[in-house]
């Protein structure tokens, strides 16, 4: 019983991270119709920034998070301006360019942190909250969960309550029609990848004290993001959030009882099944050509 409760709590916290980077991937795909394979590496760079600034050079945790967000956002903006914009007519070209970025960012991380063992960041928030005498939640995880929820709520407000958010969703629905209405596609693309990059940077920064940091950590991130995106329904942000939480719970439970590799295998099979049975995902809408 304790194990089950503990797993639920851990799964929810994990779901917060999953949602942060999956939502970014969905935004970028929705607005620019390019699969950003380097999204996992954006998260990785966020984590490395924390390691470099907070763990190595003693900058406080919260300002370091701010720097991580800014750094990753700038990388995202550069990618849009110099790679995705020139290749907009050809989605495959954008995908291949993002793979090039993936290689470059991995090397950048290796140059910054060296080849050695994975890096650890000591948690800046100490202590553990004990609920019902048995359930233990470190404050670090509570902080991450709260920040994730705040960030996602802000995004929801931005997309549904502001004019810019409407414009962004209009471009995601139909780029040409939006352009005809006078919406600047280039500007909206910059905003989409900026927001996606910021969320990836935030996810990396929040994960840094809770995980092993190495140049290849982006691999698992992108696999998770794909699973969550597909299960949630491509292009659906609420679907991605729901799928992130459900998949995180699922993954945590299978990991606890059967092991991590099997959990990922199940996730991938689940994704293929969703693609076959309901390609629009749990929250997706059927789009006709």
């Amino acid at each position: 019983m304790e194990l089950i409760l503990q797993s639920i709590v851990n799964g929810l916290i994990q779901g917060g991270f999953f949602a942060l980077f999956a939502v970014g991937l969905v935004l970028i795909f929705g607005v620019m119709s390019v699969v950003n394979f380097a999204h996992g590496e954006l998260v990785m760079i966020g984590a490395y920034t924390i390691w470099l600034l907070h763990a190595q050079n003693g900058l406080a945790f919260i300002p370091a998070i701010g720097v991580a967000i800014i750094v990753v956002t700038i990388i995202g903006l550069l990618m849009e301006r110099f790679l995705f914009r020139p290749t907009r007519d050809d989605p495959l070209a954008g995908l291949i360019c993002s793979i090039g970025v993936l290689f470059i960012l991995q090397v950048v991380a290796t140059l910054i942190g060296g080849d050695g063992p994975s890096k650890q960041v000591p948690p800046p928030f100490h202590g553990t909250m004990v609920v019902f005498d048995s359930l233990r939640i470190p404050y670090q995880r509570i902080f991450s969960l709260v920040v994730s929820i705040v960030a996602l709520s802000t995004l929801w407000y931005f997309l549904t309550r502001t004019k810019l958010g409407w414009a962004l969703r209009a471009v995601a629905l139909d780029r040409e029609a939006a352009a005809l209405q006078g919406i600047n596609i280039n500007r909206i693309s910059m905003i989409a990848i900026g927001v996606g990059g910021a969320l990836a940077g935030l996810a990396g920064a929040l994960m840094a004290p809770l995980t092993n940091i190495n140049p290849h950590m982006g691999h698992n991130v992108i696999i998770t993001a794909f699973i969550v995106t597909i299960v949630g329904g491509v292009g659906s942000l609420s679907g991605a959030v729901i799928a992130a939480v459900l998949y995180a719970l699922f993954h945590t439970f299978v990991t606890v009882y059967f092991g991590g590799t099997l959990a990922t295998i199940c996730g991938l099979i689940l994704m293929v099944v969703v693609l076959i049975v309901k390609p629009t995902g749990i929250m997706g809408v059927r789009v006709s050509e």
Partner: protein
Amino acid sequence: MNSRLKKIIGSLVLLATLVAIPHFLKFHHQDLLIFLTINVLVVASYRIVTLTGEWSLIHAVMMGVGGYTATLLFKNFDLGMWFTLPLAGGVSALIAALLCFPLFRMTQFYFLIGSFAAGEAIRLVWIQYVNPFGGTGGLSGVEPPIIGGIDFLDAIPYYYLALTVVGFCLFILYRIENSRIGLTLHAVHWKAPLAESVGVDTWRYRALAFVIGSFFVGIAGALKVHYLGTITPNQFGIGFMVFILIWVIVGGYNRFYGPIIGVVVLTVFDESIRSFAEIRPAIYGAVLIISILFLPKGLESIPAKFKAWFGIGSNSDAPPLADK
């Protein structure tokens, strides 16, 4: 001199070069030459999958399926290479045929992601089930054959063996592409509705291309494991898949020889920047981006571009039926 004679002389020169090359190389480079020969088959077989316009991300894993099949057959049933090669191809093709049912319900982006997921799942199965796949450490102890007293463990004999097998497979792939099937695959890519309207079952042809490509890459996997002697799941991860994509795209995928040029040029390039060690992937990434931005039709389009600049010949950039 007529073109037929030119072709024959060209082929003879090429053949003589290929036969002579290993004798001028150091041992390390002989090794590399064998892997390059095998990789030529990998990209050529990938091309047949992409002919229908679907870019799969499972090709590297299908190579692994061939490799694991050869390994398990060799270790458990003591089968020689002449049996493991075709059987490796056969098992890859069989698994590909089964995967067709889920995968080809999708197209484009969904197919890309779906094939990636299926491949990753297969690869994780190799990691999860230590018996019989050996887990992360993989399997070892596969040996090359000894035929007529020649030990193919040595690099040069094995190179000739690989060259023969790969050459034979390339010949078949080339014939397939220029046969009725190959033309239909082009039609499925560029004019799918039209092809359907004249009675072509596009699903069947997409699946057929995928199965044929998997068959030949399975053979490539077996060739590799027989030389290397060991096999691990990480040899066939997304990293290697990305390299296949890079070779095909940098070489150019509009013609049969484009991907082959890509793998040869980039392997030589990769070897020449060996001294940069840890920043090599970044150089690779930069080359990839630059070639996508400035040479979207790949290296093979360079001669045609030169001709166009100087006004010689017709601009034959476009692939057959490419007027989408």
